[in-house]
């Protein structure tokens, strides 16, 4: 069965620090990949997604992610975090030729200290 692993449960950074959140998936075929964010008290929102083309994907609020097929990874990055980036981040995968649900990782909670 497919699975998604997010290596860090809780990351604490100071403002202006660089961020990288790890995501690995276990499916060997073609996939579509997503990062969602859940700010405190708000619902899940899409940050960015990859489905084809350039493996470096840019999303909202200065986030980007790189799809490395050989490593089955889709890590999320931001060069300089802000206090407002405090949230929980979820990586998700979907088989490229399938309909239906996303497979989510367990999430990484990011706390940014002002």
């Amino acid at each position: 069965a497919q699975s998604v692993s997010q290596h860090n449960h809780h990351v604490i950074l100071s403002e202006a620090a660089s961020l990288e959140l790890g995501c690995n998936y276990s499916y060997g075929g073609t996939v579509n990949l997503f990062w969602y964010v859940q700010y405190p008290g708000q619902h899940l929102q899409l940050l960015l997604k990859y489905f084809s083309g350039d493996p470096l994907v840019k999303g909202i609020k200065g986030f980007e992610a790189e799809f490395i097929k050989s490593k089955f990874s889709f890590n999320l990055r931001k060069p300089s975090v802000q206090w407002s980036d405090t949230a929980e981040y979820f990586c998700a995968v979907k088989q490229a030729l399938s309909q239906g649900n996303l497979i989510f990782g367990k999430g990484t909670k990011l706390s940014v200290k002002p």
Partner: protein
Amino acid sequence: GAGVSQSPSNKVTEKGKDVELRCDPISGHTALYWYRQSLGQGLEFLIYFQGNSAPDKSGLPSDRFSAERTGGSVSTLTIQRTQQEDSAVYLCASSLDSLPADTQYFGPGTRLTVL
């Protein structure tokens, strides 16, 4: 425009009671998904609808769980004889279609507490 809405936002019930959770998807979205988010866990898929049909019910944890969708719009998730382990946030999402690259838009969730 209006996003996905869910009701109620919070539900507290006693063990053994039945509950109904409602989801209103974004207008025009043909695909609708139910997920469950338990404390410390990621999102667990329950069921999805394409139109009024449910091609994949594989995530429903037991036969106490059922869902329906009528008119290609509103969906109801029903949990019968609730148990304490059913306590979770139940999330609904919709997408324009169920194609692989379609973005799923999530509602605010219903927090269910079973006492």
